[in-house]
């Protein structure tokens, strides 16, 4: 492992549980990994349980919430994932494993595949091609823009603001088309392999028009009391075990793009966005400002990306090695890590840490003592994907 070291003690901030291990900013430890404490649910006179999900109109995916309430206030909450998928990756050659990794969570497919490939490349001790790394950044930043646009569209929809909702969905579609045109697939399937990205980013500057249009909608939403009244002070939480936009909204300067140097983000003059709101509004603000920041990065990348070839054949020769690799990337919702063990080009074992598992704990903690009408805004502000939450890799 070139980027991580095994240790008895954690070093740097704690990221979360990675299989049977605990992942920190700079080290990985064996044994206990304390996660955000589940909130206590008091049983008061007249309180009752209300079930929301697993399949319901307001939920995009299948998850069941058991809410304890006294009528309006949420006294306690539990969540149960319903679509649990077991995906077998161990025992597969690298190329076959990639097909399954792509399908863990399509909206974050680039982040998943790139983190997985980087961990394989770490295990194989491959020399990484700079152009490939730049193209991987372009993929992740396009994915971030699409995800943040979608989360903000969901928030606007929850507030019944139909014009911005549909306008934002139009922008999501525009980003999907830009990805589709560049890579042949709207969710980056079949695009990534070892030391190679099969995309042509010649149309990347279209992102300027998309973000210009977004900026107008964003300014309108920030000034809309109807909208911000639903988000401010809703789901307030400041927890140092948080990741991604949830952490940055609470003032924590956590960002794998900055503190994990596997991808050359430093060459792009990138800035981490933070706010001190700690609530759904803060998470919305961070996402909105990150769209603009990612757009600037993509414009810088346009001049840097060249369509030169990588030493792909040479790479194939070095497939057959034994080793372990661990890499973390900043997915749209926060730190995403893969730890793999390789044996002669076959994936021997794989462990995964997703931002959704960290964010779900935070959401459950932050929703206690809010009211029902606040629930959906708080839930959407975390941008949790149940598909990566319910996946078990074998």
């Amino acid at each position: 492992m070139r980027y991580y070291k095994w240790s008895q003690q954690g070093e740097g901030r704690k990221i979360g549980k990675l299989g049977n291990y605990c992942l920190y900013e700079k080290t990985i430890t064996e044994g206990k990994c304390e996660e955000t404490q589940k909130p206590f649910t008091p049983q008061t006179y007249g309180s009752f349980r209300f079930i929301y999900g697993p399949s319901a109109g307001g939920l995009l995916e299948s998850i069941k919430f058991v809410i304890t309430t006294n009528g309006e206030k949420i006294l306690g909450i539990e969540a149960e994932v319903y679509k649990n998928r077991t995906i077998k990756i161990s025992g597969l050659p690298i190329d076959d494993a990639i097909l399954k990794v792509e399908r863990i969570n399509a909206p974050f497919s680039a982040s998943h595949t790139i983190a997985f490939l980087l961990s394989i490349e770490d295990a194989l001790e491959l020399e990484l091609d700079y152009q490939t790394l730049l193209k991987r950044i372009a993929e992740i930043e396009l994915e971030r823009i699409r995800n943040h646009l979608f989360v903000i569209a969901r928030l606007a929809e929850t507030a019944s603001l139909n014009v911005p909702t549909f306008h934002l969905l139009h922008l999501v579609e525009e980003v999907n088309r830009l990805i589709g045109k560049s890579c042949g697939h709207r969710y980056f399937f079949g695009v990534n392999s070892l030391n190679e990205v099969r995309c042509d980013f010649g149309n990347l500057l279209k992102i300027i028009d998309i973000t210009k249009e977004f900026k107008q909608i964003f300014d309108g939403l920030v000034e809309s009391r109807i909208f911000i009244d639903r988000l401010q002070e809703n789901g307030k939480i400041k927890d140092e075990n948080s990741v991604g936009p949830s952490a940055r909204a609470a003032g924590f300067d956590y960002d794998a793009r900055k503190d994990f140097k596997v991808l050359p983000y430093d060459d792009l003059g990138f800035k981490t966005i933070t706010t001190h709101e700690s609530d759904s509004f803060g998470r919305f603000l961070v996402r909105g400002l990150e769209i603009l920041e990612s757009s600037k990065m993509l414009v810088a990348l346009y001049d840097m990306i060249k369509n030169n070839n990588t030493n792909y054949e040479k790479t194939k020769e070095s497939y057959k090695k034994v080793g372990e690799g661990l890499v973390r990337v900043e997915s749209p919702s926060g730190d995403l890590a893969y730890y793999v063990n390789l044996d002669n080009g076959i994936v021997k074992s794989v462990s995964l840490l997703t931002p959704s598992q960290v964010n779900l704990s935070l959401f459950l903690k932050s929703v206690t003592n809010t009211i029902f009408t606040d629930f959906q805004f708080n839930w959407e502000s975390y941008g949790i994907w149940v598909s990566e939450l319910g996946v078990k890799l074998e």
Partner: protein
Amino acid sequence: MKNWWFIRGLRKGIMTEKYPKELPEWSTEIQGQGNANCPTNAIKDEKWIKEKCIFCRRCYPNYKPNLNPRIYTVKKTQPLFKKSFYLYPIDSGSCGGCNMELKLLSSPEYDMTRFGIFFTNTPRHADALIIMGVLTEKMKEVLRKAYDAMPEPKVIILLGACAISGGIIGEGIPLEAAIEIAGCPPNPFTILEALTRVKEK
């Protein structure tokens, strides 16, 4: 002025498209001949089986997409749904891709409401159960309950390779569907056109 959403909407104008201006090639029909290294056996005797294809590009360059997005099969129609057609989406074990593409039917480009197609929040008001993802253990009961709660006449629509054949992840949905919409995930235009076909005579 900034919050006059209505005026802003008018200013933007109509964005709805009869046919998409841009299609990603790897969500369209596949054609070719020769050997194919297909992980899901979607190419057999040089014939492409759309329901199994996960568009992984392993068959390239012998097989290539031809930009025909009409990769769905209509097995049954229900003219009673001509004026309004209410869909209840259910995620039995998807990767989230089909969910996103289905949601984008609401975007101005596709605007499914112009065809009288709507989402409903309850299976009690649904005409069609639209199922995405592989069959997972806990969702079996949820699927059955949702189907039982729907009034007659009702149809099942399987969305994406996972629901139809299990794709590369697991097991498909063992229910007889009126429409099977291939793709991994299917393009919103493919989904929309397939849905409009259910309402025809």
